[in-house]
């Protein structure tokens, strides 16, 4: 059976119960029945229908277990999936094209919304690609802040993977627990950057501003809470028989398959390859941090769950080290005033505003500063013509940014290599031949975020 919506009404033979019951149509592939909602009884009563039919079921894009607006088209035999295809594009927002009509700095606001569960990574990879074209070095303190934000984001992203994955499998307490902890992370993110998600805090040349007063205690407090709460997942899920039965030996993708399909991130590491760009090609000073890359050789959904849990512990370790490094003060933006945003933001009566000192200077003392401020904010800075590709390790794998500059104040082309997009190609390999219920587990273990998949 398949879905036909555009065929003229008279091409169908009306079912026995009138136009609202199952309809059939003769095609080159034989008779095709289109079944919706509650007309199965009518279909089963149809003597032309027999049990040998190919059954194609449409799952999503509004299905609660497809991890966002992902549509799965499944050919099933009983409960077994014989073929599976994913249909994407339901969240395509043209982020890459929109960036071409904004300045380089404004582009941060767009890319941060691509993979909306890992905004700090999108911002960082985009800014690093710009910095590569500009050939500038970001100050050390800005690098440390970036690492801190990225690892915090990794924790909050893995918590969603865990929480929604648990919810899709029916473990609702896993969902409430995951979102409870994520809320802690988002509160910290709001305190540090001003926004919970889509912060646009990482900017070309550094970060928007230094961390607010009292950040040490807040970060330390978060780490303390997480260290207390993370073991709860072991109690709640790790040893739980139903959880293990749903995940063990499900969605298996061995290393050969991962390599062929270009899979990166926890899925690749669950197949046994310790490939983590933070270790293999360190960026943002990751070579100075001590942390492990957890791997497994089971290549199933359960090992991916354990890896994500272990990676959160590693991220906490990195956050602690970053916090220690932040004790050393320093600039958080490059010194080049042709790139650095001129206004130093400060906290005013309205919560946040421009520095009064800066406004006094540009309005009252220096015409040149005013012109400079105006030009940089409206026109932006130029980036030499050329192209660059930067890859970083996002919670889902290799997040790449391919930038092309034509030498102007706007990007000529922005392309995000989203790991969710690439990894989702493994869905058929993981789930064909298995049960329908296992597709849900397999997709959840890939953890695609449709904002990033469709961009």
């Amino acid at each position, binding site marked *: 059976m398949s879905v036909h919506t555009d065929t003229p009404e008279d091409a169908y033979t009306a079912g026995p119960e009138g136009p609202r019951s199952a309809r059939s149509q003769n095609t080159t592939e034989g008779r095709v029945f289109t079944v919706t909602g509650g007309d199965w009884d009518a279909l089963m009563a149809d003597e032309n229908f027999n049990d040998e039919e190919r059954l194609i079921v449409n799952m999503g894009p509004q299905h609660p277990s497809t991890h966002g607006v992902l549509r799965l088209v499944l050919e099933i035999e009983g409960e077994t999936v014989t073929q599976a295809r994913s249909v*994407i*594009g339901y969240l*395509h927002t*043209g982020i*890459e*094209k929109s960036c071409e*009509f904004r300045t380089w700095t404004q582009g941060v606001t767009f890319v941060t919304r691509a993979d909306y569960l890992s905004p700090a990574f999108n911002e960082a990879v985009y800014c690093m690609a710009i910095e*590569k*074209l500009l*050939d500038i070095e970001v100050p050390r303190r800005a690098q440390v802040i970036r690492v801190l934000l990225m690892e915090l984001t990794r924790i909050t992203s893995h918590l969603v993977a865990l929480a929604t994955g648990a919810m899709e499998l029916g473990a609702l307490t896993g969902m409430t627990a995951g979102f409870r902890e994520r809320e802690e992370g988002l509160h910290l993110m709001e305190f540090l950057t001003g926004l919970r998600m889509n912060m646009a805090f990482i900017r070309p040349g550094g970060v928007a501003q230094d961390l607010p007063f009292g950040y040490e205690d807040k970060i330390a407090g978060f780490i303390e809470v997480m260290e207390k709460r993370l073991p709860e997942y072991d109690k709640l899920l790790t040893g739980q028989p139903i959880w293990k039965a749903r995940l063990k030996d499900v969605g298996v993708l061995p290393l050969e398959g991962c*390599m*062929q*399909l*270009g*899979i*990166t991130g926890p899925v690749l590491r669950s197949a046994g*390859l310790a*490939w983590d760009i933070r270790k*293999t*090609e360190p960026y943002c000073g990751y070579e100075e941090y001590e942390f492990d890359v957890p791997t497994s050789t089971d290549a199933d959904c359960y090992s991916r769950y354990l890896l994500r849990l272990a990676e959160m512990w590693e991220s906490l370790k990195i956050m602690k080290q970053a916090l220690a490094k932040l004790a050393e003060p320093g600039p958080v933006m490059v010194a080049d005033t042709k790139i650095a945003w001129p206004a130093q933001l400060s906290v005013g009566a309205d919560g946040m505003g421009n520095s009064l000192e800066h406004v006094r200077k540009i309005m009252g003392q220096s015409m040149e500063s005013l012109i400079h401020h105006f030009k940089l904010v409206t*026109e*932006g800075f*130029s980036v030499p*013509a*050329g*192209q*660059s*590709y930067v*890859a970083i390790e996002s919670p889902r794998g*290799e997040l*790449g940014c*391919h930038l*092309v500059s*034509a*030498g*102007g*104040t*706007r990007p*000529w*082309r922005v*392309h995000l*290599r989203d790991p969710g*997009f*690439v990894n*989702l*190609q493994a869905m058929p390999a993981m789930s064909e031949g298995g049960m329908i219920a296992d597709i849900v587990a397999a997709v959840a273990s890939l953890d695609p975020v449709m904002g990033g998949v*469709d*961009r």
Partner: protein
Amino acid sequence: MTDPIPPTANPAVPSAATEANAVDTTVPAPPGASTPRSAPATTTARSGMFAAHGSGDTSGFGGLITAPHIPQPSPRPYGGYFDEVADALAAAMADRGIPDSAIYQTTVAHQEITFYVGREHLVALLWALRDDASLRFELASSISGVDYGLGVPQRLHVVYHFTSMTYRRRIRLEVAVEVEDAHVPSAVEVYPTADWHEREIWDMFGVVFDGHPALTRILMPDDWEGFPQRKDYPLGGIPVEYKGAEIPPPDQRRSYT
């Protein structure tokens, strides 16, 4: 009234009027357009600023001329691991009977190496990159399309980023084709991960990947017309409820470059 802003006021997409007074420094397309001898220009020459033309501009900005950017071949040594990769690639090509001319330019810029490749030998080169013991580029990290805009020779580019997990190296391959002949052989048989990347480039740029198992639209609806990320794809303006005014589409607004 002076001339209105020309319909294609994006300076990167010059109208006939701006092309006439721009200096023609574009590289002429070589006779066999699919096997150029040097990397094609990536921009056209531009003149003026703010996308304003024929408005009697007395600021002096109208006289500005920006030369087109053409990636230049780099001399040896390239530095870092790039020389090793280039040597290994040359050896692998000799082994497999791929002519030297398959790579017609090598450019090192921004700490990255780019091989400009003719499409005839692309698939043979990919097999060499993936399977040769001294190359081992196992991962096709990213494949993306770029449209360098109207007036540029061979304006559609397909850019491949490869990663060698064994040697921890990254390289870039670039194939340039004309819009009228936008055909590139598919990489899917070598790198199955190229499947969705190529479908996205077909969807957004209209490059046909010959040999792709199912080249269909992936992000846009199946019956969509046009290729949205091409630079000449029409963008919508915003009507304003004031005397029929309209905010022009983003590519026709005045801009700095």
